[in-house]
Structures are given as structure tokens and as C-alpha cells.
């Protein structure tokens, strides 16, 4: 079994031709090409989608920050609009008017930082303590100026920030100074808000305000006119929650400010976090004096929504079709091989049979030869010897022997004609003839003359020509006329030959007015070596009709006997026009 397996496989693959493989290979290449192109297209589409989403996130952050900036600037405007010193109640009213909770989700509060030079500190503290007795600036530091948070709303959540001095810590202080010196909104580097119990990253957003409505042009004038800052503290996580609410999280991202982490969704805890993102984008955004470093990555949701099954379907479908094609080729090739094998076998058998047939024909030839020579030679010798006996003995031969001698010669003669007929029968169809126009009247006349028609008999045929092979037609007609004469029971009679032509051939009938053949003997009459009368009565080999039938059938025709067995016989032969030789 094991040794046979590979051989079978080799035979199978051997049945496939190179062009089968070519078609399969071309189809496979087409499949892979289609898969590659569609997957490239899908990937490009996804990349576009990702870029759009990433830019969208960044834009959301920017826009939100602009909104907060607006809020801060509106704070500075409010400060300018007030006639005297700002009171806590006034700020409270302002912040309420802003309705932070609803309009600015993510903001932690909005407050005012006053710039207090050392010489103004006592006055400032006194003013504040008038309605906030416990108010103090904290924590202590070495710098000789004070940037305390005077007001912050809502105060409940920002109580720890009240009085907090920006100058105590570098991140807060440097950004505040930058805001003062540039006259623009600024944010701080990441810090932890004092009011944030969770100690998460956050920052402050500053907008400076000066003496007078206009922002002074030069640095010097700015520093002189500087009054303070309207600010908002942000806890980064809250800011992002507010910014990104209702957003589909197709993207997870993190924000760094320098080395400090501001915001991070890139962890397993995040919703739809994809540890192996399809796409990633890194972008540095300039935001109010800081560079925020965005690291944006596609999420699982993105993968889900954008995964396009089309390329995979094309690949799988194509491979399935290719496989089916291959199987189909195998099946066809195998079937074809089987058919060819079968045809070979059949052809081989036919060739063998043909050879056998040729052998048997050759044997028949040999037999005919034997019949003609080897059997006839001794027969001739017998005939001669009998003649010599008769010749040499003269009157010495007893009278009683003489009829015996003549019977002997008669039997020899009969055997010779039997052998001749047998030879002729076996040779039917062995020779090829040319079709020619044959006049039946002439042919019949020739035959009648050859057979030596006895006086009293009439043999007649119509003056019509037919297209036929001369020798077979002559043989048949001669035998039939000969039979009619031989078997006639009267001293006179008529043998009438009639012919009927039609499109497919002609019918030739030999009609006599002899004794006829009874219906039950018709079949027997057509058999070889069958005679209907004793041979001593009517001399014959019994082969005439059988040979006629064989000849006519060899040329695709037929022979039938029509006779009631009382009056006359009609032998009707049909010869097809083409007279195609039937082997």
C-alpha cells in the first residue's frame, strides 16, 4: 500500500499538462494580485480614516482650549468693567454668569490672581481680610513679590487654592511671568493642583490683565501696568473627559509635556485599548506657550469598525476557486486518461480481432487453394485414369463395368463443379470492381448463350441499363437463370427478367413459370449445399442461391424468394444505388 501511494500520485499529476498548470498559476496570481490591491486600498482608506480621527481629536483639544481662553479673557474684561476693587461676591456673580458647569465642562474653576509687590502687601491683606478675616497668602517663599490667588469660584471645591501664591513654585510662577511679559494667554507645565486629592496631573491657564483697557506694547510697560491674572485650574483627566464626551473612542492617545505625562489612555485599563494598534500618529502641538506631545493610536473599536473583510473574502474565494479548478482539471484529465486508456484497449482488441479476421481470411484463401488444386488434382487424375482404362481395355472390359465407369466419370464431374462453386463462394467480395452502366438485355442474352438455353425456352429482359458492378451482377443473374432452367419441369417455359429503378437503387427479379418452391422450403433453399431435388435428378452443387444471396448482401442489398410452390418462382434481388461494399 505504502509503496503504491506515490506511484498513483505521480500518475495523477502526470495526467495534467503544462497548460493546466499555467491556467492554475495565472488564476492564483490573479487571486493574490486582487487580494493585494484590495487590501492596499482598504489600508489606505483606513489610514485616511485614522488621520481624520486623530486630527479631529487634536482639533477638539485646541478648540476647547480656545473656549477656555475666551472665558479667561472675558474674566479680564469683567475686571476692567468693575469700578472699584473686586469683591468675592462680584467674582462669584461673574462665574455664575459663565455657568461653568454646563458651558465649560472640564474646567475646575475660574479665579483671579493679584500681582502684589512687597510694598503693597499690607494694604492687600487688609483689604481682603475686611470680609475674609482668615485670609492669608501661602506658602511662604524667598521671592520678594506675591502672586496670590485672591478669588476662585466655585470656592467649595477650590478652597485649598485660596491665597495660594504662584511665586512659591517655578512651574506656576514662570508661566505667570510669561503671561505678564507677553500679554498672551499661557498655560503652565504639568503640576499637581493643591485642590486635587488624587494628585493627578493638571495645569493652570493664565490670562494677564493690566492697568487700562489696552495691553501695553512693550515689556517694560507691561511689567509696570501688570495687575494680575485671570486663571483657570485644570485637572487633565477632567479636561479630557469634558472634551471628549460623547466621542466614539476610535483612538486612544497620550499627551506629554516634555517628559511629564499629562494624560494617558494608552494602557490596558482604557476602553477599547489596542495593544497592537493598526495606526499611530505622533504630533507636537504648540498650546499657549507649551508643546504638547500627542501620541495617538487606533483602538480596538477602530479595528472593529474599519476592518474590511473584502480582501480576505477575495483571497479565500479566489483560493477556493483555484482549488476547485485544480480538482476539476484533475478530474477531467483523469477521465480523459481513462477514456484514452479505454480507447487504447478497445483499439487493441479491435486490432487483434482484425488480425484474427485477416488470419482466418488467409486461411480461407488457403482452403480455397487447397480445394482448387490439392482436391482437384487427384480428381483429374481419377478422371484420366478412368478414361485410360476405358481406352486401353477396349472390348476386354466386361459389359457390366461400362455403366460403372460412366457413373464414376459423372461423379468426378459433379465433385469438380462442387469444388468450383465452393471456390467461387469463398471468393465473393474479394475483388474490387468499377461501377459501370450495364444493359440488362445484352447481359441476359450473353448469359443465355453461355448456358445454352434449350429450344422451347425463352429468356427475356427489358432494354434498360443499370449502374452496377459487372462481375457480381453477372454471377447472380447467371446462377438465377441457370437455376430456373435447371429446375423447370416442362419442356418449354419463359424466364422473364424485370427491373424496377428507384432513387435508392434497383430491384431485379428473375421470374420463371416452373414448379415453384413451397414456402416452408424457402429458407432451406438459401442454405449452402442444400438441393431440393436429388443430385442425380437435377445436377447441382446446392450453392447457387446461397452464393447469390451472399453476393447481393455483400453489396448492401437483399435477396428473397417469392413462390407459392405451385406455379413459378420469383427471385427478387435488391441492389442499392451506391452499392457500397459492406465488409
Amino acid at each position, binding site marked *: 500500500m505504502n509503496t503504491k501511494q506515490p506511484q498513483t500520485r505521480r500518475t495523477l499529476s502526470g495526467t495534467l499538462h503544462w497548460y493546466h498548470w499555467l491556467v492554475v498559476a495565472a488564476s492564483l496570481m490573479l487571486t493574490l494580485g486582487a487580494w493585494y490591491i484590495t487590501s492596499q486600498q482598504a489600508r489606505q482608506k483606513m489610514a485616511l480614516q485614522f488621520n481624520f480621527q486623530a486630527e479631529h481629536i487634536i482639533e477638539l483639544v485646541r478648540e476647547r482650549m480656545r473656549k477656555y481662553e475666551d472665558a479667561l479673557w472675558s474674566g479680564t474684561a469683567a475686571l476692567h468693567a468693575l469700578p472699584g476693587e473686586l469683591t468675592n461676591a462680584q467674582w462669584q456673580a461673574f462665574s455664575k454668569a459663565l455657568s461653568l458647569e454646563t458651558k465649560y465642562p472640564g474646567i475646575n474653576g475660574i479665579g483671579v490672581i493679584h500681582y502684589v509687590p512687597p510694598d503693597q502687601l499690607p494694604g492687600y491683606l487688609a483689604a481682603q481680610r475686611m470680609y475674609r478675616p482668615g485670609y492669608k497668602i501661602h506658602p511662604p517663599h524667598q521671592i520678594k513679590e506675591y502672586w496670590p490667588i485672591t478669588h476662585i469660584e466655585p470656592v467649595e471645591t477650590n478652597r485649598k487654592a485660596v491665597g495660594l501664591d504662584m511665586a512659591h513654585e517655578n512651574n506656576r510662577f514662570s508661566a505667570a511671568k510669561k503671561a505678564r511679559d507677553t500679554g498672551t494667554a499661557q498655560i503652565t507645565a504639568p503640576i499637581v493642583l493643591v485642590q486635587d486629592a488624587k494628585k493627578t496631573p493638571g495645569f493652570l491657564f493664565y490670562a494677564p490683565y493690566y492697568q487700562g483697557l489696552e495691553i501695553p506694547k512693550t515689556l517694560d510697560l507691561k511689567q509696570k501696568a501688570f495687575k494680575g491674572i485671570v486663571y483657570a485650574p485644570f485637572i487633565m483627566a477632567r479636561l479630557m473627559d469634558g472634551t471628549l464626551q460623547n466621542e466614539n473612542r476610535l483612538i486612544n492617545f497620550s499627551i506629554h509635556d516634555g517628559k511629564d505625562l499629562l494624560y494617558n489612555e494608552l494602557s490596558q485599563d482604557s476602553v477599547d485599548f489596542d495593544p497592537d494598534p493598526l495606526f499611530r500618529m505622533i504630533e507636537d502641538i504648540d498650546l499657549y506657550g507649551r508643546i504638547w506631545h500627542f501620541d495617538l493610536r487606533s483602538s480596538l473599536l477602530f479595528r472593529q469598525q474599519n476592518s474590511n473583510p473584502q480582501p480576505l473574502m477575495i483571497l479565500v474565494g479566489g483560493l477556493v476557486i483555484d482549488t476547485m479548478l485544480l480538482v476539476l482539471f484533475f478530474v477531467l484529465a483523469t477521465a480523459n486518461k481513462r477514456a484514452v486508456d479505454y480507447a487504447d484497449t478497445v483499439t487493441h482488441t479491435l486490432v487483434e480481432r482484425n488480425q484474427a479476421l485477416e488470419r482466418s481470411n488467409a486461411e480461407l484463401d488457403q482452403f480455397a487453394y487447397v480445394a482448387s*488444386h490439392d482436391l482437384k488434382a487427384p480428381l483429374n487424375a481419377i478422371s*484420366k485414369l478412368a478414361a485410360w482404362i476405358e481406352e486401353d481395355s477396349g472390348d476386354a472390359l466386361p459389359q457390366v463395368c461400362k455403366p460403372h465407369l460412366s457413373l464414376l466419370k459423372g461423379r468426378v464431374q459433379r465433385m469438380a463443379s462442387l469444388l468450383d462453386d465452393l471456390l467461387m463462394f469463398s471468393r465473393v467480395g474479394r475483388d474490387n470492381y468499377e461501377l459501370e452502366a450495364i444493359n440488362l438485355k445484352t447481359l441476359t442474352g450473353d448469359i443465355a448463350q453461355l448456358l445454352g438455353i434449350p429450344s422451347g425456352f425463352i429468356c427475356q429482359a427489358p432494354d434498360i441499363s443499370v449502374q452496377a458492378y459487372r462481375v457480381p451482377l453477372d454471377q447472380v443473374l447467371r446462377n438465377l437463370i441457370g437455376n430456373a432452367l435447371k429446375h423447370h419441369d416442362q419442356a418449354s417455359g419463359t424466364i422473364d427478367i424485370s427491373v424496377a429503378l428507384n432513387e435508392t437503387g434497383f430491384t431485379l427479379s428473375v421470374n420463371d413459370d416452373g414448379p415453384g418452391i413451397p414456402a416452408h422450403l424457402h429458407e432451406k433453399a438459401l442454405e449452402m449445399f442444400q438441393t431440393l431435388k436429388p443430385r442425380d435428378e437435377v445436377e447441382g452443387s446446392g450453392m447457387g442461391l446461397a452464393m447469390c444471396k451472399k453476393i447481393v448482401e455483400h453489396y448492401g442489398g437483399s435477396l428473397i424468394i417469392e413462390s407459392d410452390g405451385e406455379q413459378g418462382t420469383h427471385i427478387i434481388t435488391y441492389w442499392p444505388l451506391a452499392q457500397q461494399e459492406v465488409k
Partner: protein
Amino acid sequence: MIKKESVVTLFLIEDDDVDAMSIERAFAKGRIANPLVRAHDGLQALQMLRDGEVKKPFLILLDLQMPRMNGLEFLAAIRDDNMFRDSVIFVLTTSKSEQDMAAAYDNQIAGYFLKEESGESFLGVVELLNGYWKIAYLPC
């Protein structure tokens, strides 16, 4: 080379005794005095020729169907023989085969006779031969 006066010998190559006897009887009947020499097959005939048992001038009357060496083989052999290739040969046979006939004439036979058509006891053939050698010049 040509000797008209000499008596022509008939060299009969025939395996069938009755046929040979037929020729002899025909000679006797026609009172033909020419010598008649007989061989039973081709091989014996060649041997007899080479042994000088058949005196020139002679005519050969050849049968085709014979044992050992048949008529056609004998024809091929004699036409290949320097001494006897010029022999005048008639064929007397039962074979009606056109192939046999063509093969025989290919070897320059002078005539092809069928036994059954040669008349009663080959009288026709014998008469023809008798007439032939009376007027023909034969190689010697």
C-alpha cells in the same frame, strides 16, 4: 550456337505421376519420337541438368506445385545459373493465380498453360510443343 538439326529433348518437371503419364500417352498417341526426360521436383531437375542428364537442345515443361523446390523457386534458381539461364521454359500448372502467372513471366517463361484447359490428356500442349520445336531455333 544454334543447332537446328538435333533432336529436341522435352525435360518434364512434374511431381504427379498421372500428369506425367498423360504427357507420355500424348507423345505416344501423336507418334512423337523426341526423348522425354522427367524430374519429380525442382531440386532433382537442377541436379539432373548439372549432371548433364539432359542433352541440349531441350525444352522444359514445368509444374508449379511441387515438393522440396517448387516451380517458381526452380525458375529463380535457373535464371541465376550461368549454364542454363537461357533455357526455354513452359509452365503447365493447375494454378490460376495471377500472382503465380506474373511471377513466372517475370522469369522469362515462354508460355503459361493451365492443365484443365490444355485439352484431353494435354494433347493441345503436346501438339503445340511438337510444332514449336519443329520450326524454332533453340539454344544449345
